[in-house]
């Protein structure tokens, strides 16, 4: 199980880097889509089918389509980066990478064990529904009102005259 997790993590990293370094905006968006799918896989491995599917529905089914839409409407253009990767900068990047790895390793050694383990949480559909409508009712409602305000504002901005 651990190996599968690490392979999946490797793929998420690759896709995440693809989002940043992709020159074609559409390809970047699709990398983001694949990245979200690997995150959904993480949820499946952690035993929460519900969260995994919600991740796919919300991010893959909604948000990336919107991003793709915006890219199409603004026109597809290949972006050329405003920097050149020379031998010197490449060496710098590699060295910086090693430095970052060292820092991360030191951090992991010293502080990681101080972080408490996440408490058990029932992540089935029933469990999450229960938590949302009892313990976390107030934050849930506040978030929904915030989203509603966002929708109304979007309408006001989009419409020339209200």
């Amino acid at each position, binding site marked *: 199980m651990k190996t599968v997790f690490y392979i999946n993590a490797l793929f998420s990293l690759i896709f995440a880097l693809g989002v940043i370094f992709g020159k074609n905006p559409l390809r970047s968006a699709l990398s983001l889509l694949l990245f979200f799918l690997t995150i959904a896989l993480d949820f499946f491995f952690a035993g929460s089918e519900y969260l995994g599917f919600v991740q796919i529905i919300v991010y*893959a089914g909604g948000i990336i*389509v919107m991003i793709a839409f915006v890219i199409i409407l603004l026109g597809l253009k290949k972006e050329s980066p405003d920097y050149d990767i020379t031998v010197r900068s490449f060496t710098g990047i590699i060295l910086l990478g090693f430095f970052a790895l060292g820092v991360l390793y030191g951090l992991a050694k010293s502080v990681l064990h101080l972080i408490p383990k996440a408490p058990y949480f029932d992540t089935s559909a029933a469990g999450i529904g229960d938590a949302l409508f009892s313990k976390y009712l107030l934050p849930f409602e506040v978030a929904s009102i915030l989203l509603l305000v966002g929708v109304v504002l979007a309408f006001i901005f989009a419409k020339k005259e209200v």
Partner: protein
Amino acid sequence: MALKDVLILVVKISIVIGGMLGVVAYLTLMERKVVAYIQERLGPNRVGPWGLLQPIADGIKLFFKEDVIPAHVDKLLYIIAPAITMTMAVMPFVIIPFSKSFFLSDINVGILLLLAISGINTYGVLLAGISSNSKYSMIGGLRVASQLISYEVALSLAFVGVVLWNGSMSLVKITEAQHVVWNIIPQFIGFIVFFIAALAELNRIPFDLPEAEAELVAGYHTEYSSMKFALFYLGEYANLTAMSAIITTLYLGGWQGPWLPGFVWFAIKTFVVLFVFMWIRWTYPRFRFDQLISVGWKVLIPLALLNIALTAILRIYI
């Protein structure tokens, strides 16, 4: 998992996929026959008795056609798009219970799987539209994206009604919960909403704006030829079969029925729904695009919300 279990699963999967592809191939013949009788014609009747070998002839013809990839297309996306459409069209059959004991898997959030699949399904047509380097394809792809997003909301809200009424998201449990009365009676508003939204999700007339041939040639698959075109075409029919099977499972009691074995009932109900889809396609004219969007947002979604409220009230007092 022992080797025997794996083998049984592989055999089951092959039966489902093989049977499904067979049904899909013959659906093309069924559609042509149905439209022929609706328009008082004979339909295909040259290849084999009653035209029964027509799908095979079509398949061979498409295999031998030249596979044209137009200039300046985004090749990777252009090739991936039909594959996404076809795979996502076959996926729902993973969780559909064909009879009391024959289903591939029973996951307890099955309905969410269906929604996730229909979410990814959008990319097949969207990518085909974008990558084809053609104005018609592009407009077709954009229309598909906006249409699918709008109608997915109504579709998922209709799902919520079913889930509330049956108290489960597993398709097996939903089917079993319908042994007294089919969901179509307590969920009638939900059924209407679901059916119309399904028509729109499938891009069928009266909602087939993405491939409106009068204005867009063939929409998102204008530039596709040979087997890639066939994958879109088959994917469309596979989606149609999947949607009919989902409607059967959610609203028409699935495999349940007297006397006959469950599998037969399931097939009969699915084909009745398929026939209704075809009947609608050849009876109604096409909507305008603004009509389509406003029906989705101003009629279907409020109706679906009303259905959820009524279902909740009914659940409390019955």
